[in-house]
């Protein structure tokens, strides 16, 4: 897909403070089972482009499917940025474009491929999905099932007016399988989501997991709901990963902070959020995960950014603009879900680093608590967050006991992190998630965490 000369020609016509062009080609295959039979199978292909221009701190953006005449797209985006910068009655006078320095570079990045999903026939993909669906339905008591398999390749050519030119390709594979059981109007479901960068293998050898999900769904009909209130909870690595993403990650995104003086005062470097066992990191430079890449959508090289060390805030995630305006270094976290959107500050792979405790240490002394596993979803609004477990089990006298209905957990950044009183040493990873922000979703992200324990966590009744 060489668009290099076309893009670079168009950029020479630019007279904004900064201008960038992205051209993208994508191909996706998706198949869905709903109930006993295949519901949908489709292949879609896309091609489109985007131009973004900055004049005196104001941004103009244009996205399009028609790639003819890139020069006039550059001109339009620039003109619009200029007209916005002249402001409503001159209110933006004195503003200037501030972008952190990034060394210009030229690079062509080949995709990470472990087992290429594009080389697997449709026949093989449907056969395997069909096989998993049979496993679900072989469990007595199943009322319905959902299987979603998808693979997608995205090639992006990017150039900016600083002289950077990057071509990059990524291939994603995702899968979600869920089983539903029903008794009268009581419908319960259980399932799991997984994903991988460039590896069809993640969709293979799932028989045991599928069969367990089907069993769990049926079992939930008999499980009791918990009463809402505060309890000690232990989170498995999957749910603890969702926790760090929701509870801390979003407030680390500097676009929330850079124009917000009050929030800057709360999220200052050196602020203590919890015990010394808390160590959080985000970064696309962690190889081979779904949130991994070599350059972000502004062409900035990926990094691994420590966010919390020994319980203390030490870093946050940036685009070039938020880095320049806070005086911090760019971290390569500006991401766009496709050419239809401008890049904004996003997480990539977000981690809780290992502590020293064992899982048994976490259980010890818990008289009446809940062990929550697997994820169903999560959301954040500033300091408040909620996330849902896919499974929940009672803990009594330090032992994991019977299953109860899955619960939703809620908290508040400034209190809940203080209440994380133990971190285990058994880190595991989850790549089945997609993150949403500013209308851009699902963005591929990864998480990793060991088991963690939270005291006095608010859970909802079910």
């Amino acid at each position, binding site marked *: 897909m060489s668009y290099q000369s076309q893009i670079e020609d168009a950029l020479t016509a630019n007279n904004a403070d900064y201008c960038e062009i992205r051209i993208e080609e994508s191909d996706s295959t998706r198949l869905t089972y709903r109930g006993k*039979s295949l*519901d949908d199978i*489709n292949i*879609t292909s896309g091609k489109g482009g985007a131009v973004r221009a900055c004049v005196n701190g104001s941004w103009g*953006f*244009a996205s399009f499917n028609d790639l003819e005449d890139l020069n006039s797209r550059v001109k339009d985006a620039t003109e619009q940025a200029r*007209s916005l910068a002249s402001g409503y009655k001159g209110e933006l006078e004195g503003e200037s474009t501030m972008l952190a320095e990034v060394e210009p570079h030229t690079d062509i990045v080949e995709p990470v491929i472990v087992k290429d999903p594009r080389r697997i026939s449709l026949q093989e993909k449907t056969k395997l999905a069909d096989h998993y669906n049979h496993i679900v339905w072989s469990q007595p008591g199943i*009322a319905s099932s959902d299987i979603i398999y998808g693979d997608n390749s995205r090639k992006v050519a990017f150039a900016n007016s600083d002289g950077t030119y990057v071509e990059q390709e990524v291939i994603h594979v995702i899968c979600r399988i869920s089983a539903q059981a029903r008794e009268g109007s009581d419908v319960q479901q259980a399932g799991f989501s997984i994903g991988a960068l460039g590896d069809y293998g993640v969709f293979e050898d799932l028989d045991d997991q599928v069969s367990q999900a089907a069993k769990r769904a049926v079992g939930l009909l008999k499980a009791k709901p918990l009463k809402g209130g505060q309890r000690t909870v232990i989170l498995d690595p999957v749910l603890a990963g969702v926790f760090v993403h929701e509870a801390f990650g979003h407030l680390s995104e500097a676009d929330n902070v850079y124009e917000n003086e009050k929030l800057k005062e709360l999220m200052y470097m050196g602020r203590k959020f919890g015990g010394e066992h808390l160590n959080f990191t985000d970064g696309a430079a962690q190889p081979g995960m779904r949130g991994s890449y070599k350059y972000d959508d502004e062409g900035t090289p990926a990094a691994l950014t420590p966010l919390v060390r020994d319980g203390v805030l030490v870093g946050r995630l940036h685009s070039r603009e938020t880095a320049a305006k806070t005086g911090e270094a760019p971290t390569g976290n500006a991401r766009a879900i496709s050419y239809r959107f401008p890049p904004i500050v996003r997480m990539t792979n977000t981690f809780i680093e290992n502590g020293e405790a064992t899982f048994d240490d976490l259980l010890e002394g818990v008289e009446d608590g809940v062990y929550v596993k697997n994820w169903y979803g999560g959301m954040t609004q500033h300091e408040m967050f909620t996330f849902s477990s896919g499974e929940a089990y009672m803990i009594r006298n330090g032992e994991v006991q019977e299953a109860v209905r*899955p619960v939703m957990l809620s908290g508040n950044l400034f209190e809940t992190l203080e209440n994380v009183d133990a971190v285990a040493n058994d880190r595991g990873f989850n790549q089945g998630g997609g993150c949403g922000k500013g209308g851009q979703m699902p963005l591929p992200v990864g998480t990793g965490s060991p088991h963690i324990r939270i005291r006095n966590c608010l859970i909802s009744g079910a």
Partner: protein
Amino acid sequence: MTNHSEQLLDLATTAHGNAEVFAETSERHHVEFEANRPKNIGQRQSSGIALRIINKNGRIGFSSTSDNDKIDELVDRTGVLSEYGAEAKFQFPIASDYPSVATSDSSAVDITDDELLAFGRSAIDAILSEFPDALCSAEFSKSSGQQHLINSAGVNAAHNHTSCSFYMGVELIRGTDMLSVWDGTVTTVAINESNLERIVSGLLTKLRNSQKIVEAPSGKDIPVLFSPVGFNGTFLPPLLSGFNGKNVATGSSPLIGRWGEKMLDQRISISDDPLRPMTPASRPMDDEGIPSRRLNFVSNGVVGEPFLDLQTAGETDKTSTGSGMRSINTTPSPSTSFITMAGGETPNDAMFNDIKQGILVEQLLGAGQGNELGGDFRANLSLGFLIENGEVVGRVKDTMISGNVYEALNEIEAISEKPEPVWGTRLLPWVRTRGVEIASSSSPS
């Protein structure tokens, strides 16, 4: 676009027999304010085309592209895909007389950037004049689009739509307390002063009511009042999932076998009305060429009928309700258009009266993570208030609500007389119920 569609249909019909082409073009222009000031401006032009076929063995093939150079590939690709595709439980419909409904107005796209900037400035200034340390964001957008549907059975129909939207969010930070309130609307004509005033005055009320943080009660049997926005977020997703043709066809809807039964309070009537003129969801037909009609989901508490597209109608031995909607990259699936709920008997401003102690639900965080299929709901209150003796006394935090829609909507205490617009695609009343559990970390559990 029309040329591409007709050529593609000809090729596909020759190759496969039965075929349908859906094409869409749209243009969206936006102006955004961040941190009280204009920040972003731009537009999105998009176009795409999708081909669906039913092959000689009765199986569905579907593929789409936004790349004009690849349109010809769709014919072969859908052929290959249809070998693995789902069995078609329908035939492409023949042309119908479509009802006429107004869907567009050029004023929506004629509004200028300067007018939008002036609107944004005055809305933000109105907030800042009372709350000078607030940070406001605002987004205006205007869009127009055309859809064209053509099939081998004779449907050849196109319609245009326009919309104009305004969204505003306000943040206030005091200590470690962060307050965020938001509202917005979508219209098919240009946004005007009165749209803006309604949104700004609603936001100001929420900000005023949030100045004091109070403890929430916990437990059941507490009166909970839902604003129209709160009702929409809490109850409609789990309720509508039961009416969704996909869930009916797979057997996972709790309403199966219960159509015609009274399952909710008799004061509740909820409909879907695509023929209501000049809403963002108005349409003479659905995206499969079936004429639009009004659907009564709940009439006086009795559950009526599900919403179906062609495939789910075929699977359930019914006829399509004209609810097949799609984007370019997806096959049609059942969806709703403009949801209305009938008003009750209590004047809107009397909904707070005689609440000795209760909760007002305005905005939710994390709704939709529970077991919606079973009618369950649960969410954190991102914006909720304590009501005492008929008055809002302050904001509650770290508080969750949960319950089941079929229980909560059977324990109704009052429904307001006048429904109010929500996001431009809903018209809903205020509703007070006791069937909701409150869990709060600010009160002993």
